[in-house]
């Protein structure tokens, strides 16, 4: 097979280059806390080594006549020292045109990825590979044990395929268009960056609590999100739009045994109209029901069908890129706010090989907030703990207080970390 040096953007990625900017960076980040201080030269070498096995990350974004595409980037990658607002927009030109960044600071390594490149689970796979390669370069003998992909084989091409298109099926379940939605809002910062709060919970305690509500962890967290949102932004307030919609990404790799490192997730929309006072139990029940409905294969296939058929539409295809950009930007300007009230992204448990886990104390997952999605939660489990990272675009932290408050009241042991972004300097 001829070596490929360019890739069309996958179905989900197509929108990001048109609408990204300072107000919408569309990044997500994995951070690992190590037991020893980071050696920047080795880390830089590790990232460059890994790029040879993940060609879709060794790319730069280019404009075509009809679509954007990813083209092989021949420049070397350079890691950077962590900054306070590391989730902010990546300056591609300053980053040798790469669409991701790797930061280091003392014991911490972070991988920040622009969403056009990959989604959370794809990014996590690459992050694990970087960690493995880094420790191997440090001379540690680590057996990947099938938990992390290593080496280059002809099968690697599967990692760069667009599985939205390859698993496209004709399915038509009518998907309701969301009505006007309630939104989280507050006083914007008068400086760049996002407020971040991480709550670390014991996984078994959270699972036990979810079980008490008859829900899985993701269902419980989604219900709690609804409840905290309702208490923070709707309860006792004269708000016109009382319809709340939370987007929960679903990793499609397991469903279709996909190995793709590109975007391959769809969303379950947990929508509810808050017409009266609701309890936490009711919210969890609503979330669990909507999750189960949303995870139905026909529904997910219909969403994929809708998205891919738009891409396959001949009339849309032949519209020049500058016109597509213009239409998407205008559409996002007017309708972007109405897509969701909030996002909860749970990438699940991270399983590292035992020899590698010795050196990695903690793993965290965070998502950059944006002008259209001002409050997000990222969840990841590692070594019996679950880290929930709240990102927000504004000063007020009422939502986090409600969310973490409920967990603390339920008797969970919680450790909180924050970047105190609202702090006056």
């Amino acid at each position, binding site marked *: 097979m001829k070596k490929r040096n360019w890739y069309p953007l996958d179905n989900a990625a197509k929108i990001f280059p048109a609408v990204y900017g300072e107000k919408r960076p569309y990044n997500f980040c994995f951070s690992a806390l190590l037991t020893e201080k980071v050696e920047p030269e080795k880390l830089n070498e590790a990232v460059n080594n890994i790029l040879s096995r993940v060609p879709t990350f060794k790319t730069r974004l280019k404009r075509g006549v009809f679509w954007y595409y990813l083209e092989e980037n021949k420049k070397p990658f350079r890691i950077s020292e962590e900054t306070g607002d590391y989730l902010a927009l990546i300056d591609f030109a300053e980053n040798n045109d790469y669409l991701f960044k790797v930061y280091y600071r003392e014991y911490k390594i972070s991988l920040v990825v622009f969403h056009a490149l990959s989604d959370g689970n794809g990014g996590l796979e690459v992050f694990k590979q970087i960690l493995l390669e880094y420790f191997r370069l440090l001379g540690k003998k680590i057996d990947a044990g099938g938990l992390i992909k290593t080496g280059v084989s002809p099968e690697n091409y599967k990692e760069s395929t667009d599985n939205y298109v390859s698993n496209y099926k004709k399915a038509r379940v009518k998907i309701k268009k969301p009505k006007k939605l309630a939104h989280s809002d507050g006083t914007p910062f008068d400086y760049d960056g996002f407020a971040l709060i991480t709550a670390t919970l014991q996984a078994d305690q959270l699972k036990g609590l979810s079980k008490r509500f008859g829900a899985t962890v993701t269902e419980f967290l989604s219900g709690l999100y609804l409840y905290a949102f309702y208490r923070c932004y709707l309860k006792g307030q004269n708000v016109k739009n009382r319809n709340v919609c939370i987007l929960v990404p679903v990793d499609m790799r397991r469903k279709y045994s996909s190995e793709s490192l590109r975007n391959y997730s769809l969303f379950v929309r947990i929508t509810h109209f808050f017409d009266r006072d609701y309890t936490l139990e009711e919210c969890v029940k609503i979330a669990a029901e909507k999750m189960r409905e949303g995870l139905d294969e026909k529904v997910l296939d219909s969403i994929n069908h809708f998205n891919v058929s738009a891409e396959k539409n001949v009339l849309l295809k032949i519209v020049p890129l500058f016109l597509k950009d213009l239409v998407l930007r205008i559409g996002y300007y007017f309708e972007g706010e109405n897509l969701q009230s909030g996002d909860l992204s749970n990438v699940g448990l991270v399983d590292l090989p035992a020899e590698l886990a010795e050196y990695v104390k903690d793993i965290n997952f965070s998502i950059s907030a944006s002008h259209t999605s001002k409050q997000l939660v990222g969840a990841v489990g590692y070594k019996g703990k679950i880290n929930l990272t709240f990102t927000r675009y504004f000063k007020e932290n009422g939502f986090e207080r409600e969310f973490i408050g409920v967990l603390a009241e339920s008797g969970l042991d919680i450790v*909180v970390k924050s970047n105190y972004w609202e702090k006056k300097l």
Partner: protein
Amino acid sequence: MKYCKHCNVKVDSSENYCPLCYNYLEELEPETDRFEYYLGRDGGKKRSASNHFLLKLFLYISVCISVVCFTVNYFTEPHMLWSPVVFVSVLYLWILIGHTILSKRSPFEKIFFQFVGLVVLLIFLERLSMRAWFLDYVLPSILLAASSVMALISLISKRKNALVSTFFVYYVLLEVVSLIVLLVTDVYSVLYLIHAVYNGLLLLGTVIFAYRILKADIAKKAHL
């Protein structure tokens, strides 16, 4: 590690107040070698005030100039309209500043827009001068120069493979311009004929010698 008795959470921070309720924290155990997980923000970074003052000012001045010129032209010499030249000049300035100087687009795209802008500007200037010089001499000279420069770059540049499809598109566009002038207008046509043949040969050469590169590049840039 610190503790907030109001929120009932432990707080891992060097700050002495809770990030949730902003009450003072109790010290649980003093840590000697703690790592601050999050970096706070640095004081110097202020959000850039993006009210685009210069853009608005330039837009306002452009509109003022155009309106004043049109008014003066209409009331002094209504039978001889020179104000469109001013509009086009202003438009050209917008291309020059907004696209050529300030934007981060590729040099070839900038050159292309400059070429189009300049041609339109010269056409209007020609109309004002009331003598046919642009279409007869200037445009074919520009076309010949453009084709020659591209041919030269194709021969000497180290990046010539990356430029094949861009130059191919430009050759086609230049050929189209020459053919339109030859077929539609009745201007002095020898220079256009020379350009059409010369440029056509360059086009053919590109197709013959760089067919594979051209095909791959077009598949990449114009994929559907």
